[in-house]
């Protein structure tokens, strides 16, 4: 038992250093353009240079966060920010428990909690485009989202059931940018997840939708990119989320502006 406070002290000291130093555990992603899956008629999106965490945030890291930020502990967090599953896989407010590996990615965290963690670190959540850009890199190519073998690999993972116990982060192969676990471990929150629209594709649906959305004359997700079905699944998944949801296979990583 006495080991825990000492360990915590170390962790706390470490993280305050981390927060100030130049990106530790992050890689620089250089400015580039890419085509997100829904883009129509060759629209390409520019992603400005930024830093991204090489790994998803782990349970151990999130424990440090809730230790320092009482209001984000399981029993304290406001119900408007988290649903009842928040950190549901932990055994207590400050107890990850024995069924969860500390170095496995934290899940069951709401978007609000993820955002608060990022702020505490002096970081932010990556934008949808930033995340998708990095996720479109295979091990050897920066843009592989239309590469059949790569997409096949991702779909294979999507079709496998989640393991009872999640493995530690960083065990897979890094992608072209040196970033780990964009696929194959968890799904991840992005900053603007709630800007995504999955709308009906038929004209009939669109008339109905006009009552709900100001579409300003454009249909947003009409041109689904068939070659990138994996991305479609991610967009559909994000579209189904509410910001207070805590989902068992949904975690996050942080980003930071590059100035």
């Amino acid at each position, binding site marked *: 038992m006495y080991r825990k406070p000492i360990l915590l002290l170390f962790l706390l000291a470490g993280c305050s250093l981390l927060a100030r130093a130049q990106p530790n555990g992050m890689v620089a992603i250089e400015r580039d353009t890419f085509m997100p899956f829904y883009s129509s008629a060759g629209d390409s999106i520019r992603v400005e240079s930024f830093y991204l965490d090489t790994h998803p945030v782990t349970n151990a890291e999130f424990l440090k966060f809730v230790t320092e930020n009482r209001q984000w502990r399981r029993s*304290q967090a406001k119900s408007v920010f988290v649903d009842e599953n928040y950190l549901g896989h932990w055994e207590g407010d400050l107890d990850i428990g024995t069924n969860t590996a500390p170095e496995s990615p934290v899940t069951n965290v709401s978007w609000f909690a993820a955002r608060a963690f990022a702020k505490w670190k002096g970081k932010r959540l990556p934008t949808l485009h930033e995340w998708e850009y990095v996720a479109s890199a295979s091990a050897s190519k920066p843009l592989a989202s239309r590469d059949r073998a790569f997409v096949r690999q991702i779909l294979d993972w999507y079709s496998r059931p989640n393991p009872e116990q999640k493995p530690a982060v960083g065990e897979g192969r890094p992608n072209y940018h040196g970033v780990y676990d964009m696929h194959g471990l968890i799904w991840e929150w992005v900053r603007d997840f709630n800007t995504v629209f999955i709308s009906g594709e038929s004209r009939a649906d669109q008339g109905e939708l006009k009552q709900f959305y100001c579409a300003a004359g454009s249909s947003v997700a009409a041109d689904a990119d068939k070659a990138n079905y994996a991305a479609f699944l991610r967009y559909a998944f994000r579209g189904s989320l509410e910001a207070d949801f805590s989902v068992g296979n949904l975690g996050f990583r942080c980003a930071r502006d590059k100035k």
Partner: protein
Amino acid sequence: MTIYSYQNTVFLFLVTAVFLAGACSSGEKQQAAQSDGMAMSDDEHAAHADMQMDAGEPTGESIYNVSSTWQNRRGESVTLNSLGGKVQVVAMVYTHCEHACPRILADMQRIRDGLPEKALSATNFTIISIDPERDTPGRLTDFARENNLSDDQWTLLNGDEGDILEIAALLGVKYKRISDTDFTHSNMITVLNKEGEVAYQRRQLTDQQDKIIDVIHDLGS
């Protein structure tokens, strides 16, 4: 709704008690809540006074739990907590919108016109811009003047993009920039009770204002 918020208050009270006990023993002192916006009975006041705790802590379901700061049309810094104490009718729009936003605003004005005087005095209308670059306080002032949005009934807010996303997430409003000049966005009008809890949401444009007026009327009395 009143029963619900009362329970919430009691719950908060208990949580606060546990929190204070914990905080004392570990020598930590942090995060006393700021400002008051919650109406309470004298009994509750007395109970809280014993706790040496500020009365202003928002309820668990209140969107006033956000810590973001905003600029109003006069360029003054305001927190959302300052909206507490009145029923709020909230929409997220951008003032350059030529499509649904004018209709949303027109609906809000019709709602205002449909409220009896007493309910109206307990109600405020809040417009949160999703276009912070162009909807500067100056632009919001012009927009308010053009549409006769009086300062005592209408709050127009400009904020940081991340904070706008946070409010959108809390209200369940979805929006997306689709060009340099336009956004798609939900046509949602939200009614918040005096504590800042979402009491009612109307997701689509309609000519029927009766239902939402009833809700506001009940919350305001």
